[in-house]
C-alpha cells in the first residue's frame, strides 16, 4: 500500500520533470531534467521491486544510476567544449 503511494508520487514527479525537459529553454535545463528523470527512474525501479516482491530490481537501479551520472557528464562536456576528447591545454589561449 505505502509503496503504491510512493510509486504514484514518483510518477507525478516524473511527469513534472519531463515537462521541464520539454519546456527547456536552454540545453542545461534539459540536461538537469534528464538527470532528474534518471534519479526518479532509479527510485521507481526500487519501489516497483518492493511492490512486486522482487528486490532484484535494485541491481538494475544501481547500474542505471552509474550510467545516468556518466551520461549527464558526457552531455555537459560535449556542450561545454563541443568535443568529448577535449584537451584543457587548448583553452589557455
Amino acid at each position, binding site marked *: 500500500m505505502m509503496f503504491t503511494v510512493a510509486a504514484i508520487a514518483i510518477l507525478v514527479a516524473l511527469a513534472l520533470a519531463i515537462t521541464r525537459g520539454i519546456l527547456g529553454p536552454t*540545453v542545461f535545463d534539459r540536461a538537469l531534467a534528464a538527470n532528474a528523470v534518471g534519479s526518479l527512474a532509479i527510485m521507481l525501479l526500487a519501489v516497483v521491486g518492493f511492490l512486486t516482491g522482487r528486490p532484484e530490481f535494485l541491481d538494475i537501479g544501481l547500474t542505471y544510476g552509474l550510467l545516468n551520472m556518466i551520461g549527464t557528464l558526457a552531455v555537459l562536456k560535449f556542450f561545454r567544449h563541443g568535443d568529448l576528447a577535449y584537451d584543457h591545454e587548448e583553452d589557455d589561449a
Partner: protein
Amino acid sequence: MALAVDILSWALILLGSFFTVVGAAGLVRMPDLFTRMHAASVIDTTGVGFLVLGMMLQAGLGLVTLKLFFILVLFFFAGPVVVHALAQAALHEKIEPQLALGGQRRDASADPIPGATKGRPS
C-alpha cells in the same frame, strides 16, 4: 515492535514521496536554471534519502538493505558532482543567475535578464 517499524517506514516513505513531488514541482515552477538546480537537488537528497530509509526499514537486515545503502551512497556522491558540472558549464556559456535588483523582485516574463535565455536551443 514490528508495528512501530512499519509505522516509521510508512512515515519515512510518505515524507520521501512528498519531497519528491515538491522537488519536481520546483523544477517546473522555478524562474531560472540555478534555482531549478536547487529544486532538483531536493529530489536527490531528501526525496531519495527518506524513500530509501523507509525501504531499508521494510527490508530488514540483509543484502537488499546493503544494495539500498549503495544506492544512497551513489546519490550522495553523484548528485553534487553532476550539479556542479552543470553550473560550471552554464556559467561558461554566460548564463548568469537571475538576481533581485535594488531589493525588488524581478519579473522574469516582463524583463528577462540578457543572457538568461541564451545558450544553445534544443
